[in-house]
């Protein structure tokens, strides 16, 4: 998964079929793994004060784990008053999907409806599986199978999690607030492979914690995001720039 895609095109038709079958298998496996933690999103969303309809709406329309956890995290801390900050946090975490779209557009091909559907399911997982395949066809198969598998699994288990969360009542007693923090750690972990990312993570943690007692809920997270803009702009601690960086191949959860 993390290794660079092999660029040798499969010339033999049997090879091609085999590659596509591998892409399908990988897509389904990723879909299954992602679905498993849709349960935690559903339960945490209800714990944050959303109802089951609202929780499912987010998983269907927004459909991006990091943004979804961010939205409910900020709402849990600040309530409706933190709405603008919650929207901004979710949107900023969604910027990377736009970058993925630039990479997956050539894989998907043209056609308005096809691109609309593809855009909707352009996330860490579908992009990562697609880019890891060796041939044009297997990349396309990997993209669609992964995106659809994650979409179906994630929405089904979100609903299940919301129903469970609804039945639990006092979610703090079950440690669901700590589970939310652990979920963020899981989303961050695969992205900490380079010194620059680690430095940004540490600085953002300090900034957010320091500002929490000072600013209204939601804002500390947004101010901490400025760390990334500044470090990224000047490429501090970055070493030589890699054209078209490997963001999609790093970290596939969320």
């Amino acid at each position, binding site marked *: 998964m993390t290794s660079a895609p092999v660029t040798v095109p499969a010339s033999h038709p049997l090879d091609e079929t085999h590659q596509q079958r591998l892409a399908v298998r990988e897509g389904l496996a990723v879909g299954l793994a992602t679905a498993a*933690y849709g349960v935690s999103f559903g339960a945490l969303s209800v714990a944050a004060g*959303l109802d089951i309809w609202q929780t499912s*709406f987010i998983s269907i*329309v*927004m*459909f991006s784990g*990091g*943004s979804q956890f*961010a939205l409910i995290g900020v709402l849990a801390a600040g309530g*409706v008053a933190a*709405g*603008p900050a*919650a929207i901004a946090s*979710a*949107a*900023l975490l*969604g*910027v*990377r*999907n*736009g*970058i*993925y*779209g*630039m990479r997956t557009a050539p894989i998907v091909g043209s056609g308005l409806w096809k*691109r609309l559907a593809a*855009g909707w399911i*352009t996330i860490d997982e579908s992009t990562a599986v697609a880019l890891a395949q060796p041939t044009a066809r297997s990349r396309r198969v990997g993209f669609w199978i992964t995106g659809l598998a994650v979409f179906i699994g994630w929405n089904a288990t979100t609903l299940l999690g919301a129903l469970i969360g609804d039945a639990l009542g006092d979610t703090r*007693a*079950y*440690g669901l*607030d*700590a589970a*939310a*923090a*652990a979920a*963020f*750690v*899981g989303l961050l*972990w695969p992205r*900490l492979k380079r010194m*620059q990312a680690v430095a*940004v993570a*540490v*600085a*953002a*943690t300090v900034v*957010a*914690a320091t500002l*929490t*007692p000072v600013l209204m*809920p939601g804002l500390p997270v947004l101010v*901490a995001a400025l760390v*990334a*803009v500044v*470090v*990224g702009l000047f490429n501090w601690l*970055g070493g030589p720039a890699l054209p*078209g960086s490997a963001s999609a191949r790093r*970290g596939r959860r969320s």
Partner: protein
Amino acid sequence: MTLWQIIIAASIAVLALKLAGYLVPPALLAKPTPSRIADLLTVALLAALIAVQTLGSGQALALDARIPAVIVAAGLFAIKTPFIVVVIVAALVAAGLRALT
């Protein structure tokens, strides 16, 4: 703003960003800076959310059962434990500590 308005606005914003990627000319991708900032933006936001989710209590800082739970979670991710297992263990650690104290 009502809760529904917040949810709809945020959902549309995230969906629009995904679709925007298919409209941007690919030449932009050749420049490393936008990609790098997007990568680091994700890192910074997730790290900040961990801090707030672990230490925040409304508009105050609180040291409680969430801290050991998150430390355990980081350790488990370091040894490549599956996501769902870590999340459950973290919840159990926090719930267990709260039940004891």
